[in-house]
């Protein structure tokens, strides 16, 4: 199968990347910033990425590692807040959305990434380990800790 051109890839997969980035960052603007940062990194190396035949996995890995590594420094002032800033419309799920973001924001960054990859992207433990560059054992332990924390979150218990 021929690898997509960069523009084709962004047009077809950009929205999905943004949704994952939104769960990681909890903010529409930061999600857009994260996606753009990751895509810029990939643009520079697109020909070699395309030749490897695993464009989607590479871009996703770049985005998640950008979130877990680089943005650790860029967003060093980030703290979970009671009312999370967002620009999405207040639809029927607005309250659930805010509660979910509050629960996710309480997780350490690595655990949050594991949760998003495992339970939103539906990656296996091995795939998640590969994306994050950690061992499967670490994925398991991070997942266990994250689920434990989420289960103790009263607001998520109500939603479940």
């Amino acid at each position: 199968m021929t690898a997509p051109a960069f523009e084709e890839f962004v047009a077809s997969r950009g929205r999905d990347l943004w949704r994952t980035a939104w769960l990681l960052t909890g903010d529409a603007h930061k999600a857009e910033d994260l996606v753009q940062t990751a895509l810029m990194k990939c643009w520079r190396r697109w020909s070699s990425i395309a030749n490897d035949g695993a464009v989607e996995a590479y871009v996703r890995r770049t985005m998640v590692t950008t979130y877990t590594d680089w943005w650790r420094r860029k967003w060093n002032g980030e703290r979970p807040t009671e009312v999370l800033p967002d620009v999405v419309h207040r639809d029927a799920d607005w309250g659930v959305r805010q509660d979910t973001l509050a629960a996710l924001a309480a997780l350490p960054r690595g655990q949050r990434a594991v949760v998003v990859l495992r339970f939103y992207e539906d990656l296996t433990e091995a795939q998640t380990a590969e994306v994050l560059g950690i061992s499967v054992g670490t994925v398991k332990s991070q997942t266990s800790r994250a689920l434990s924390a989420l289960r103790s979150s009263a607001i998520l218990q109500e939603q479940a």
Partner: protein
Amino acid sequence: MTEEQLRDILARVVPEAPDSAADPVPVVRAARARRRVQAVGVAGVAAALVVGTVVGVRAVDPDDDTQVVDQPPVSMADPYDTAPCPGLDSDWPNAAVADLDAVTAVRYCGRPLNGFDAAAGPADALVNDVSVFTAAVRSIAPADPGRCAAVDVMPTDSRLLFLLPDGSYVGVPAGMCQDAEVEGRVLDGNDLTSALLAAVDGQRDTHQYAAEDDDPVACTSLPDISPVSPARERLVSATVCPQEGTSWSEQVLDASGVEALDGAWTDAEPAPEESVSCAPPDEAMPWIMARSDRGDLVRIDVDDCGALAFQGYPTEWYTLGLTIDRLQELSGIGRLD
């Protein structure tokens, strides 16, 4: 809450993405703009490096040694083999450049003098599009005779070597406050060096080539004066270099360590204005000497937070998004017991 319930919640709360998320134009535009900024900045590399070496020592007189050294004709195809620097113990050419249009290649050569080390230039000579460099040199303002009255510079014997069609060289001083005569005009050697680095940068952008050498770099090496760019060059070997008296040991990174370092290098970003500040560590951090696929020797420093950083264009620092501790985990490098 079960795992399935968590999946349902996450799927339910994620909003629709804005249309802009599927628009590649802003991404491509931003990426190209960043690349241009990095390329434009190269002209100041030499200036920054030379300014940083100002010390209380008198400049050498470049007129002491005036000669043209004959060399056998060399191939123009390979930027690494073309116009090699003379041996350190031989006489180095030093003469006016009469006609830039006759020049077929240009190389920067560094040579220690009076006990002061001198950084080497790019491993690759300028062999393509020399006319671009020639035009840039002709636009350089003549050196101001009073420009260096108030400063003394570290003495070096570094030269720009101009290869002529018959295989002979003409060499002019390459340092700050050193007069270089080109087509009857006296220019500052540092201005010439800046023009050469910009031209080599352009050559790298437009021509694909790589150095064969991937040997580890010795910690005693100086970083090259070169237009190396994280956006373009890859790292092929690296050595962790300890500060004297610390628990770190000098260690060559294995393949996994080089891969991790290169990945972080490729993704390096200009350091944010408000970077994280950390208390000084208990002992001085090591640094890393790396080699690029173009043959550049690159120094990567470790900040107080343990993060790797690289000084690129004149004053801009890049952070690599990787800490020395993480690199230690990935590569097995360690400290002395």
